[in-house]
């Protein structure tokens, strides 16, 4: 299997290379935003209301200072987008990490111990999964805002968003890891370490975990795209990042208010960046999933 896997890895299709490259470029640009962005959108002194709603440079009355135009407060849109992508990716990545850690942990416990522990964890997951991500996330974000007024501030909103997204996503990891753990638990090496008398925690983390991690990475890649989209949707609906510290979704929300007056760039450029980022991650994720899918093995 290892040999066939490495052979398949060598035949990565061009589209996957391009998609991966696109995603990496966007992530890198977002990570380096403070270095490459022409302005700092969080620095109140760097922008001026007089520059508000200027069209992109290539349109007839564009301003040479602003490549993609400015938003309603006179912020350089390109800079706002780079910083916004950074916020989107950090929240999406954070949600994936939290969901993966919680899901893998609970999946290991459910699969290793079985019995009522397993039943309780998995039934709870079933209930969570019977509701759509966006509804749960909206409820969590909405309730959090009511309980702590500070939840909508720039410092706390990212953590609320990460929690709101992860509350739904962990179940997928838990299901996968639980099934894999049940298979591994029946293997001889696990029985052997049990006989030696190692504590359960050590068996789960040191011996079973490394053997069930493959599928987790695939789910994480696909979920990263989904998490970035959910964050964007929440911010678009107004329960996400505040306009002072916008994510891509917040920028699109701001832009949406100006669409009718013919100011299309505030909404469209951030939307384009969001779609390209998610598309790149999705293509790579799809390819990874097919790579690990035994049903498709041998089809080339």
């Amino acid at each position, binding site marked *: 299997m290892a040999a066939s896997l490495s052979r398949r890895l060598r035949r990565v299709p061009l589209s996957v290379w391009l998609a991966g490259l696109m995603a990496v470029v966007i992530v890198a640009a977002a990570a380096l935003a403070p270095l490459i962005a022409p302005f700092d959108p969080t620095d109140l002194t760097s922008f001026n209301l007089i520059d508000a709603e200027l069209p992109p440079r290539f349109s007839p009355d564009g301003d040479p200072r602003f490549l993609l135009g400015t938003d309603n407060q006179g912020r350089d849109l390109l800079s706002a987008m780079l910083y916004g992508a950074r916020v989107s990716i950090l929240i999406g990545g954070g949600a994936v990490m939290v969901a993966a850690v919680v899901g893998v942990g609970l999946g290991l416990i459910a699969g290793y111990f079985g019995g009522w522990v397993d039943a309780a964890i998995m039934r709870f997951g079933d*209930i969570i999964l*019977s*509701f*759509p991500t*966006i*509804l749960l996330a*909206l*409820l969590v*974000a*909405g*309730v959090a*805002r*009511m*309980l702590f007024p500070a939840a909508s501030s720039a410092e706390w909103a990212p953590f609320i968003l990460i929690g709101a997204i992860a509350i739904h996503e962990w179940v997928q990891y838990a299901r996968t890891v639980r099934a894999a753990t049940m298979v591994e638990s029946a293997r001889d090496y696990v029985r052997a370490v049990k006989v030696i008398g190692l504590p359960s925690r050590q068996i789960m983390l040191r011996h079973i975990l490394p053997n069930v991690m493959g599928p987790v990475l695939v789910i994480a890649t696909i979920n990263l*795209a989904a998490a970035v*989209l959910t964050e*964007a*949707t929440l911010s*678009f*609906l*107004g*329960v996400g990042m505040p306009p002072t510290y916008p994510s891509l979704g917040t920028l*699109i929300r701001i*832009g*949406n208010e100006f*669409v*009718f007056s*013919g100011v*299309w760039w505030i*909404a*469209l450029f951030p*939307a384009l960046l*969001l*779609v390209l980022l*998610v*598309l790149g991650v*999705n*293509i790579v994720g*799809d390819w990874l999933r097919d790579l690990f899918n035994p049903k498709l093995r041998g089809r080339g």
Partner: protein
Amino acid sequence: MLRLLLARLGQAALVMLAVSAVSFGMFRFVGDPVAALSRENATIAEKAELREQLGLDRPVVVQFAGFLSRIVRGDFGISFRNQRPVATLIAERLPATLELVLVATLLSLALGIPLGVLCALKPDRVAARLVQAVSLIGISTPTFVTGIVLILTFAVTLGLLPSFGRGETVQIGPWSTGLLTLSGLKALILPSITLALYQLTLIMRLVRSELIDVLSSDYIRFARARGLSARHIHFTLALRNALMPVITVTGLQIGSLIAFAIVTETVFQWPGMGLLFIQAVSFSDVPVMAAYLLFVGLLFVVINTAVDLLYALVDPRLRVRA
């Protein structure tokens, strides 16, 4: 079969109890109901009286029982913002959402099935590859971006279609429909396309993968060996079996679509339940949020339970597990 029925119904009741507990928790512990209902400079005595009137001084379990008996009777309380019964508000908004979801589902099936079949049967044709590529872009495009692009193109630039509201509606009993007037139908076009596109990719990919699976099964190989025509094999023998899971998923998705309509309704200012809910979230209107949660929860539980039971009815192998 009876055991399975009871087990499934018991599970459904348990989930609904959990959902109502969350909903009750929101009512009781999110924000202070007394502060929300009393006037600004109410005295402590007045507040205590209101607290007693609302039964907030009784044990939580008793309060929860009271809450349950009220919602069973259809009393979801009064909206903080509109000062009207929540049940009425939801009943008013329900037709708009259901019409949108229904039209979007039909649209996505009408387009998704043929496209999926095309991709499964002729995977190497340019058209099929194009459809596959576009579907990946479709999955990666959030609903609100599709909506904004459609508004920009057809409403702002071309001025062909309305971009918000439902147009004129006709009242038939308690149901207000936009399907019978020209402006109602025109207003429906952009939102239903937006919502359908979200669903379309899913249906298309599902039809494609199911059909590919079915086409590699033994009975199709035997049908080929018998010399039946490709047309007969593909459309009569294979497609029928491939469509079974598609119909199930479409049914299961109706609940998600209603929830997902929140986004579409926000973009197009469509006066449905989703818009009601998102306004409730931004105004901290707890009774409306709690009632929406209960309504959608009930919808999901009913759909999931019905599908499970129907499956057991259709497929005897599933009756053994339970």
